[in-house]
Each structure stands twice: as structure tokens, then as C-alpha cells.
């Protein structure tokens, strides 16, 4: 994590970028520039440049204290935290559906292919997986958005059932939930309310996000088909499955219990890697579909250059990645008893 942050810091502070210039524009006076430089901590009040290591410790220290500062260029003087929270829902929504697509289609298809190995159905589903795996996101994103926007071959998608946009960020996203007081009348719990989904906006927002989510989830989906298939095959041809049959278990029980859990072991890293999409999103997909999420925000922040925002996002992405890696290791010890965290037997 320190390495990642240091690297980003060096790129941002040593690189040939001029945030002061882009904040003030061309008409800036020398006094303004000097003033802002002091404000941004490039030079001290006396006009001497602040040493790099001092800047470094200030930036990293702030990050570690979770003090992300204020935006420089994107929305001047808005707290970075506020910006991120503002953009978070769109990315989460996109990530959520791409994970749903990848998990909901990829894994069942992989299991299906594995259970019917070397039949036509197996070849069909494996082929399906490989095709989705092989299509690069940037290409697929352009093709799909081309097909469904006006005039495209799949243009009917926009008007089907409810007329929706397929790019941009829909307002519906802000109305997904209504807080409902379901504890009214119950002492002590009266003030608590829980969010309840609103079907209308829910549907609109889902329909709007699906094409983008399909693009984002496509390659993981393909991966899961392939790895799921191999994992099932490996497990189903193993001796313990034969032993389980000899015990008189039904094939449903064998697949559900004995094959299932063993097949999850190789799938776990793929699944966990995919949850990273949830937050990390994809700069590319968000850019093509014009979704105002974190990916887009990150892209603009780098162009800005909005150094506090970039640093904050890098910090958050790294934290999430680490969190997922740790939880993946923990899950491993739970699923596969052969791996333990070093406690003695």
C-alpha cells in the first residue's frame, strides 16, 4: 500500500503537471499564482519551495488519518470525500450488476458445462464463455452502445417497456430506496427506519445499467465458465466422488455437497477478483457509456490534475484491494481445511 501511494505521489508531484495553472487559467496574475502556490503547499510563505520529502509526509500523513482534503480542480474547495460519496452509487450499481451477470451466468454455465463434459452442450457453453472472454472491453463497449443507441440494430432496447436512456446517469438511481419507518409504535425503535426498494426506479435504473454491466462483467463471466468447468471436471473424476457413489449417495447430493465445495476452491480468486469491479469499476466502460461514477471521476481527476482527489482514490482502491485479498485468504481457510492460518494442530 505504501508502495502504491508513494509511486502515485512521485508521479503526481515530480511529473510535468501544473495544477496551479489549470486552476487559475491563463489570465492569472503573478500574485494570484504565488498565493495559490502557498495555499497548495508547493512553496512556503517566504517563497521557498517546500522540500519534496516534507510534501510527501504531509500527503501520506493526511491519507493515513483519512483526511482527504479538498478538491483542487474538479470542484474547487469541495471536500474530496463529498465528491466520492456523490459518485459512488453509480459505480456501485454498475459493479453490482456486472457481478450479478458474471456470477449468475458464468458460474452456472461453467458447472453445467463441467457436468456434461465433452458433449455438444458443453462445447456450446464453453464456446459462449470463450467468446465473451475474448472480446476486449473497449471494443465491446463501443459496439454495444452503438447497437442500442438510436438507429442501431438493437435500438428497440431503449424504448422497450419503459423508455430509458442507456448512457449517462439516471435520476432513478437516487430514488432506489425510500426510508420507511416500519418500527412505528415499537418503543425505542421508532426512530429507526429501513430502506425499502422502489420498484419503478429500480427497474429503470437496472435497465439503464445492464448494457454497461454486461460489458464490464463479460470477461469475468467467460473466466468463470472456463474455470468452473475445469473445477467441476477435476472434482467429479476424483476418487472421493467414486467413494461417495459407493456409499449410495444420490448424484444430486454428490454434486451439491462433494463436488460443489471442492469446485469453489479454484473459483474463489476469480470471484473475489471480480468483486473488485464493484468499486474499481472501469474507467473505460464508464467513459463510453457516460456514467458519472468513480471511474470517470478518477479519469477526470488525473486530467485535472486534481492531486488530492487522485491520491484519495488511489488510497481507497488500494485499501479495498487489500481488504478483498485478506477476506479471500480468510474464506480459503473456511472452505478448504487443508489451509490454515498457522495455528498449531
Amino acid at each position: 500500500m505504501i508502495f502504491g501511494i508513494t509511486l502515485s505521489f512521485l508521479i503526481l508531484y515530480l511529473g510535468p503537471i501544473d495544477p496551479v495553472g489549470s486552476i487559475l487559467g491563463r489570465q492569472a496574475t503573478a500574485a494570484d499564482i504565488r498565493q495559490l502556490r502557498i495555499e497548495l503547499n508547493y512553496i512556503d510563505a517566504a517563497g521557498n519551495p517546500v522540500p519534496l520529502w516534507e510534501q510527501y509526509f504531509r500527503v501520506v500523513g493526511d491519507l493515513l488519518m483519512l483526511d482527504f482534503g479538498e478538491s483542487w480542480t474538479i470542484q474547487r474547495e469541495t471536500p474530496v470525500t463529498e465528491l466520492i460519496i456523490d459518485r459512488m452509487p453509480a459505480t456501485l450499481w454498475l459493479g453490482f450488476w456486472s457481478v450479478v451477470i458474471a456470477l449468475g451466468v458464468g458460474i452456472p454455465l461453467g458447472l453445467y458445462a463441467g457436468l456434461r463434459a465433452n458433449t455438444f452442450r458443453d462445447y456450446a457453453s464453453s464456446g459462449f464463455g470463450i467468446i465473451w472472454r475474448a472480446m476486449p472491453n473497449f471494443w465491446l463497449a463501443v459496439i454495444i452502445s452503438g447497437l442500442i443507441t438510436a438507429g442501431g440494430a438493437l435500438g428497440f432496447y431503449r424504448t422497450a417497456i419503459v423508455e430509458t436512456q442507456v448512457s449517462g446517469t439516471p435520476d432513478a438511481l437516487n430514488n432506489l430506496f425510500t426510508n420507511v419507518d416500519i418500527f412505528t409504535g415499537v418503543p425505542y425503535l421508532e426512530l429507526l427506519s429501513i430502506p425499502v426498494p422502489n420498484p419503478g426506479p429500480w427497474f429503470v435504473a437496472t435497465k439503464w445499467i445492464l448494457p454497461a454491466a454486461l460489458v464490464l462483467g463479460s470477461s469475468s463471466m467467460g473466466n468463470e465458465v472456463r474455470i468452473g468447468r475445469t473445477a467441476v471436471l477435476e472434482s467429479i473424476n476424483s476418487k472421493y466422488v467414486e467413494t461417495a457413489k459407493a456409499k449410495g449417495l444420490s448424484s444430486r447430493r454428490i454434486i451439491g455437497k462433494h463436488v460443489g465445495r471442492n469446485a469453489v476452491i479454484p473459483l474463489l480468486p476469480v470471484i473475489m477478483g471480480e468483486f473488485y469491479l464493484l468499486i474499481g469499476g472501469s474507467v473505460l466502460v464508464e467513459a463510453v457509456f457516460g456514467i458519472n461514477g468513480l471511474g470517470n471521476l478518477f479519469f477526470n481527476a488525473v486530467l485535472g490534475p486534481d492531486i488530492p482527489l487522485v491520491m484519495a482514490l488511489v488510497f481507497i482502491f488500494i485499501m479495498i484491494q487489500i481488504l478483498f485479498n485478506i477476506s479471500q485468504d480468510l474464506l480459503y481457510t473456511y472452505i478448504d481445511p487443508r489451509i490454515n492460518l498457522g495455528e498449531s494442530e
Partner: protein
Amino acid sequence: MTRSQSATMTDSEDPILSVRDLQTVFYTDNETVRAVDSISFDVGRGETVGIVGESGSGKSVTARSIMGLIESPGKVLPESSISFAGRELTDLSAEQYQSVRGSGIGMVFQDPQQSLNPVYTVGNQIRESLKINRDITGEEAVEEAMRLLQAVGIPDAKRRLDEYPNQFSGGMRQRAVIAMMLACDPDFLICDEPTTALDVTIQAQILDLLKELQEERGLSILFITHDMGVIADIADRVNVMYAGQIVEKAAVEDLFSNPQHPYTKALLRSIPGEHSRADGLETIEGQVPTPNEPADHCRFAPRCPKSFGACDKVPPQHVSVGDSEGHTASCLLYPDDQSETARVETHIEKESERTEEQP
């Protein structure tokens, strides 16, 4: 008692398992492998019958055929008959077969390292057997699983139940597999080389355990191995398999004291320790052929020191040999009180009788 006359005779009174003309073939792209080619044998109640043979002689395929575990591209041909406790197994549907496995016939496999599912505790897997086959669950199942582990000689059974297979040693794991199979309460146990992956000391312990359990529970056992020493130790009667066929059947004492088939003789001669060092170790030249063509000749003929012209043309049938009842061999050298032509005639006759019997 005319039973010693026929090749399809009953080997024992009231057999629990009776296999007739079992044929299991594997269809591959360029050939049809007759892994088990028309074998017949019986296992009586409370008896241990051994099947011995080299690798690739069809021992394990025989076991899997009985268990109904042959999968595509393999197939048990419809002429085959496997009758277990009076029930014809080859006619059963997949669901019916499932009810025979476990509670009727249990099976212990060769490799205890892999026969247990690594992600579930040993106790869990034993309780699963109890639940499916005997409908025992909950606290009672834990108790019963513990008793079973104790019965197969695993100390500290209570703690062991909560351990995973990787925490067991090889011998302990095989004991756990046996406990798991006993949990199904089978009448019949197939042991497919259960001691091959274990060292000799553990091997002897497992064999003693099986004998003990057999006495206690009246189990019938079909014991498959390539190890003549193990067979001598555990089996009551032995079937010697070669290239998918049974070449000699005998009670275990007769087989070792008075082997008749040239293959059995050669096999016993190639066991180390029976001869002085100066002689070197006797071997059987050549390899077991892949039985990919119909049995219209003796498959051992190319390696047989005593083969003669007819061996390549006439499929040998089981004829009574030796002095004891139930000792048969399928070889054109027998019955040895007849002339060569008469012997060949006898075998041709028997073969046509046998093929007529089949529908």
C-alpha cells in the same frame, strides 16, 4: 452332485453374489476393449473371495461393474448377469442401483489418500453414510460414528471425528474409509486393492481388521489384489484373472499347493523368496495383451511355455482340474486324462453349449 462338471456351476451354496458371463467393454475411438470378458464367479455368505491378477487384467473393472459404476465409454453388455441376494442388478435403474450401493454392497478403494473428501471432516462423512443408508441423524449418529471408528481401531475416536482427512495418516485414513463403508451396514464389501498404497505393517493390520469385522458382522468380501501374499492371507477362494478372463478358480490352499493353469504356475513361481538366490527370479515373458479382440483363442498362449497349435484357435473353457471340488482352470491342457485331440474336442463342445445357453 454334478456341479463340478459345468463351467457355469455354482461355486458355493446359497451365494450372496453370483456373477454370470459378465462382459464389460470400453468403446474407444479405434478399438473396443473387452476389459472384462465373460467371467463367472460366486461369493458365498460370510466368505472372502479373492480376485488376483496383473495390472490391466480387469480386476477393478469387475468391481466397478458389480457396483454399477461403469461410465461411458464403458458398458456392461446386456448378456451379463449380476445377481445380488437374489436380485438381478443389471436390470436396475440408476435410482434402484443407488439403493443397492452402500447399504447392500460397499466398496473400499485403493487409494485412501483420495477416497475421502478433503473439505469435510471424517465425522461428517461417516454421519453422511449413516443418514443416507440407515436414517440415523443427530446425536445418535455422532455416537454411532464414534463406535465405528473405535471398531476399526482408531484411538481417541471422539476427537478424530472432528478432524479432516489430511490430519490422518495413510493407514488411519483407510480405517476411516472402512468405518465409513461399515456405516452403510452392507452385507457385502468389495475391497479393491485396499492395502496396495499402504506399507506392509499397516497392510497386515488392515487385513486383520477386515477378518475381524467379517467374523463380527458376517460380511461377505470380494477382495481384489495383485499381491499373492495378501490373497493367501485373507481369501477363502481365489479367482485368477488374466486379460479380462478368469483362468483358474480354486480354494486358496489348492491354488497355492496345486496350481494347474500355466499362468497361475508361472505367477507363483515369480514370487520372490520361493527359490534359492542362484536361480534368479523367474518372470513371465511379455506383457498382458489388451483384450481388444473377441475371445476366439487363449489369450495367454503367446506367453505360455506349454502352448500348442490349437491354443491360437480354440477358446479354452473352464474344466475341473486337480483333486478338489470347485477347482477349475480354463486351459486346453485339461482335463489331463484325455489325449490332446480329445481335450480340444471337449473345449469346443463346451463352448458351443455355453453360447447356446445364452439368449
